[in-house]
């Protein structure tokens, strides 16, 4: 029976049906729900690792030990795992290993929109691109067959529109796959130069075999049609082409590395004009052009952002000399950017950092929202862990920065890639201040546990990393813990540590406002005392607005953190109960 599933749910289902026993990854939108769903199936083991490189390495170990393994991450996570991935291509696998790269065209929740199909080309490993949830389920199963047949890891590349769209899926019975025996084989698994040279030959032979496979696999198919304009497309772009030009000839590519050269040439003979429709980079287009074919692609299809069928239709019709109405209009409406939640423990930190006019090297997580006005307290955000290293670099370039710079990083992110740059700062004589914004969870992606939360993905209790003890063990002498809802103490600690002249770690600890049991009594404005100075608005709390020139707190939104009461100079904000009594 068909059932609605997101692409992510379907990938988890496909892995379960393929007999996958081990799932490992690091949460990142739009990939997160794959492992969360996979973990619920019977007889499997799933875990979050501190980062994507570690996750892939756990996956490699599981594959060598004989279990089919699923490794999941978002596109930028593959950058973190790339060191292991490119050599994994040489060693190959034992039991099947599939790496899901969830790309984010349109930057719905990411810092860039890189096209990870190039990792397939770079690492010389197959790339599969499903076009809906049912294909995602089927492709995962096929990917395990391919992985074992060709002794290679396989990349399943999805995009946000596949990952987070519900479409109908037909479930099948899971297959029981027994563990493959482990065979010690240093020539295959120890990549010293002498062995790696030989393995590179094997990778090339594998590439040839995969090229032959690409020509015959049902993953790639020609859909006959009418007209002399033909489309080559993959992934979600296939759906946009089908919507915009139903009945046109289409070469649908499910396997996008290696590409089927003969099939492409055969398709080219059927049509006069070839248009390649793909999101982001001209990845297929370049391959097709390299075959000596005349092809239309990125000169008409946007190279940035997400596509939709209207964009495709408009671009193609314009190229063919027809034009359709342009619906892009300037609406001139106020934007509604994401904001930190009412009661968010990050808000007071950025309020103080902004007040102290410090340079803040930031990181990726909810706290990146500290860049938004009115807080406007973040100077840089590059990738996970970058803020600490950048603070050290700034100080080395200009010692003045050490007295007015802080690096902020979340708890999960610190474990992901903040520890090594902190070691760097200590080792190389830095004087920086690092604020670990510890809200006891991976909040941005939906509250996944991590090594400091005391719980695993499977719901088991776990030892908790002690950030304060860890920082001391790394050589940090100044380690402080502070509650962000105590503004006075927070201000005092940050001021002191920034001026200290040596490395400081400040653990700013308060649970995420969205975790259960965080709802507190709402606050109220005593109208007679409010002067309308709007100082409380500088917090950027969605629960506070100005009505009739006075501050007003929406009791439905307010989470009772009490920070606004500390900011108000006129004692006009009090706990709700007092004003009602």
């Amino acid at each position: 029976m068909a059932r609605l599933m997101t692409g992510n749910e379907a990938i988890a289902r496909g892995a379960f049906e393929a007999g996958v026993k081990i799932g490992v990854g690091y949460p990142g939108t739009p990939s997160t729900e794959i492992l969360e769903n996979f973990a619920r199936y019977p007889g499997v083991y799933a875990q979050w690792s501190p980062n994507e490189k570690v996750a892939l390495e756990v996956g490699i170990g599981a594959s060598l030990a004989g279990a089919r393994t699923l490794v999941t991450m978002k596109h930028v996570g593959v950058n973190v795992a790339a060191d292991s991935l490119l050599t994994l291509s040489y060693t190959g696998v034992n039991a099947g290993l599939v790496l899901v790269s969830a790309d984010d065209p349109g930057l719905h929740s990411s810092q860039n929109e890189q096209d990870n199909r190039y990792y397939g080309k770079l690492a010389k490993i197959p790339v599969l691109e499903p076009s809906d949830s049912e294909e995602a389920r089927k492709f995962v199963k096929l990917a395990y067959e391919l992985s074992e047949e060709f002794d290679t890891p396989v990349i399943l590349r999805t995009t946000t529109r596949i990952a987070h769209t519900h479409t109908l899926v037909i479930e099948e019975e899971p297959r029981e796959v027994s563990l493959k025996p482990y065979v010690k084989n240093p020539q295959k698994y120890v990549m010293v130069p002498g062995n790696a040279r030989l393995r590179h030959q094997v990778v090339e032979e594998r590439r040839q075999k995969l090229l032959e496979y690409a020509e015959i696999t049902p993953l790639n198919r020609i859909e006959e049609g009418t007209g002399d304009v033909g489309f080559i497309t993959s992934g979600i772009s296939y759906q946009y082409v089908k919507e915009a030009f139903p009945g046109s000839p289409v070469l649908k590519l499910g396997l996008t590395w290696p590409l089927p050269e003969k099939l492409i040439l055969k398709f080219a003979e059927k049509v006069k004009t070839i248009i390649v429709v793909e999101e982001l980079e001209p990845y297929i287009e370049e391959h097709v052009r390299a075959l000596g074919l005349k092809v239309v692609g990125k000169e008409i299809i946007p190279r940035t952002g997400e596509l939709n069928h209207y964009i495709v239709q408009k671009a193609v019709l314009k190229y063919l000399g027809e034009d359709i109405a342009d619906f892009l209009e300037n609406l001139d409406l106020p934007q509604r950017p994401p904001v930190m939640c009412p009661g968010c423990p990050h808000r007071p930190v950025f309020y103080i950092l902004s007040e102290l006019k410090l340079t803040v090297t930031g990181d990726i997580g909810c706290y990146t929202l500290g860049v938004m006005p009115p807080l406007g307290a973040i100077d840089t955000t590059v990738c996970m862990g970058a803020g600490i290293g950048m603070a050290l670099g700034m100080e080395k370039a200009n010692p003045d920065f050490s007295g007015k710079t802080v690096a902020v990083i979340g708890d999960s992110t610190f474990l992901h890639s903040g520890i090594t740059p902190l070691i760097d700062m200590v080792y190389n004589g830095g004087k920086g201040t690092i604020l670990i914004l510890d809200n006891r969870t991976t909040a941005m992606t939906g509250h996944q546990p991590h090594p400091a939360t005391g719980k695993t993905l499977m719901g088991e209790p776990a030892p908790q990393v002690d950030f304060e003890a860890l920082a001391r063990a790394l050589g940090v002498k100044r380690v402080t813990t502070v509650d962000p809802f105590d503004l006075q103490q927070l201000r005092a600690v940050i001021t002191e540590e920034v001026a200290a002249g040596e490395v400081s770690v400040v653990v700013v600890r308060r649970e995420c406002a969205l975790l259960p049991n965080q709802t507190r009594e709402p606050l109220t404005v005593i109208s007679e005392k409010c002067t309308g100075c709007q100082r409380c608005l500088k917090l950027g709390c969605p629960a506070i607005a100005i009505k009739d020139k006075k501050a007003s707190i929406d009791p439905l939104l307010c989470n009772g953190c009490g920070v606004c009461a500390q900011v108000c100079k006129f004692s006009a904000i009090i706990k709700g109960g007092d004003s009602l009594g």
Partner: protein
Amino acid sequence: MDKNILLAGVGGQGTILASKIIAGVAEKAGLDVKVAEVHGMAQRGGAVVTYLRFGKKVNSPLIAHREADFLLAFEKLEALRWLSYLKPEGLALVNDMEIYPLPVLTGKASYPDFRERAQGVNFNLIPAREIAKSRNNPRGINMVLLGFLAKRLTFPKEAWLQEIQKRSGKFSEANIACFQAGFTYGA
């Protein structure tokens, strides 16, 4: 029955549950269904939109300008943001509620006048918050709006009730009360 429905609102308002219920009803009717949601950073109080399409065969999960039969809007500013996606004969069902975004809260922008900006569009302004409150379920705004929509689709009412029950857990009764109120008011 081929329909394109846009659900627009503010993160945390319950648009995703509403879309799942509509999708479930369409699926039970044997139709092909696609629902594209927004996750991640956009959920933190930002603007959210869900694209929902059903029919004999659905390709693109997205709805383009002038293609939506219905706009189910949970907030007036968010309704305005997506009005141009309605077909000329399409209908906007709009919760008569204002949630100020940050630029309005901080005085950098003013909240637009809905009626002025929605001229020439078919819309119903629905006091969903008041209706939900009157049913002792202030969080049931999404169910009230769903009731208004259900009245305008041809699926059997029983299918809606079953789907709401299935997806509401311990809030089943409260949610069904709000749905019924919307269904009746929406007549």
